[in-house]
């Protein structure tokens, strides 16, 4: 609170900025309110994803062998690549916010375009992974008509086939299906957030091109930046849980 009152006295020169809404005292108060509102929204998002993480943790503790088997079937190369793509896009987003704050418009637009491109790359790689799961009949239930959950199981002593599911002792197909329900729910919700984020960044690029942002008014870039980083953090936790943790149990 002290923060807001202090800034009231010092930022009176930006009073009357064209982007100042009438119910705010000054630009600083407006920015602070916007950031706070976004954080409150992100808390609800954390709880939303938290529920799915909870379900994952619970089922993993009940079916460790099945979750390892299923986790080992995921494409770790594409997963690692996507992690790198997303963290880098978070970096370019942070650069875009910085450039907006100091009023460098051309690098700002460039950073936003790179962020959008990386976000779409992530979604493209994710789509490839989903298609691989479809090919291997790993879409749970009968979500896809005519292609129910029916993966081929790797037989002992047969040459390893990457398209076949290698079941560890104690794992059943029904339990593996539970993993894939969670996998598609979690990565699917995450991908949906990415699609929304890509739409928001497109909006930012259009408004930047129109010259709507300046060092006094950059809340939209900042707030959408917060959202983008949040989506990145969700992936930072999804990646080890879904792709990496299975390997430990198998390799010792």
């Amino acid at each position, binding site marked *: 609170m002290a923060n807001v009152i202090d800034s009231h006295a010092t930022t009176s020169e930006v009073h009357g900025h064209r982007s100042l809404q009438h119910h705010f005292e000054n630009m600083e108060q407006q920015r602070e309110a916007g950031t706070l509102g976004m954080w409150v929204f992100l808390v609800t998002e954390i709880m939303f994803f938290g529920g799915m993480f909870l379900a994952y943790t*619970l089922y993993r*503790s009940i079916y460790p062998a099945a979750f390892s088997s299923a986790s080992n079937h995921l494409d770790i190369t594409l997963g690692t690549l996507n992690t790198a793509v997303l963290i880098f896009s*978070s970096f370019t987003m942070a650069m875009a916010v910085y450039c907006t704050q100091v009023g460098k418009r051309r690098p700002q637009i460039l950073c936003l375009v790179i962020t959008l491109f990386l976000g779409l790359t992530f979604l493209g790689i994710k789509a490839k992974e989903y298609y691989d799961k479809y090919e291997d009949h790993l879409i749970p239930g009968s979500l896809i008509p005519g292609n129910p959950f029916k993966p081929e199981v790797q037989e002992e002593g047969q040459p390893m086939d990457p398209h076949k599911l290698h079941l560890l002792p104690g794992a059943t197909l029904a339990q593996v299906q539970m993993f894939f329900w969670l996998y598609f729910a979690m990565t699917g919700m995450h991908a949906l957030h990415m699609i929304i984020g890509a739409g928001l960044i497109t909006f930012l690029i259009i408004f930047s091109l129109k010259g709507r942002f300046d060092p006094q008014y950059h809340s939209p870039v*900042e707030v959408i930046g917060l959202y983008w980083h949040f989506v990145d953090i969700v992936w930072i936790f999804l990646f*080890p849980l879904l*792709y990496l943790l299975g390997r430990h149990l198998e390799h010792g």
Partner: protein
Amino acid sequence: MTVIAAFYDFPWKLNAIVALTIATIKGTFVVLYFMHVRYSSRLVWVIVASALFWLGIMFALTFSDYLTRSWISIGY
């Protein structure tokens, strides 16, 4: 960042705790610096902390239930 990402290429040497610790460190880094919480007002700190607090309650209460009823089979 790149070093951590490269570290992930050898996941079978990590156990669950190490993997999650790295994820938490990465996440904390993103929150503090990319999301500017480090330089934000006290109120934003409180909001961020409350998220972790409620999340902790949800996990703690759920597991205090499920992990103590092993005599009932869950799922199939």
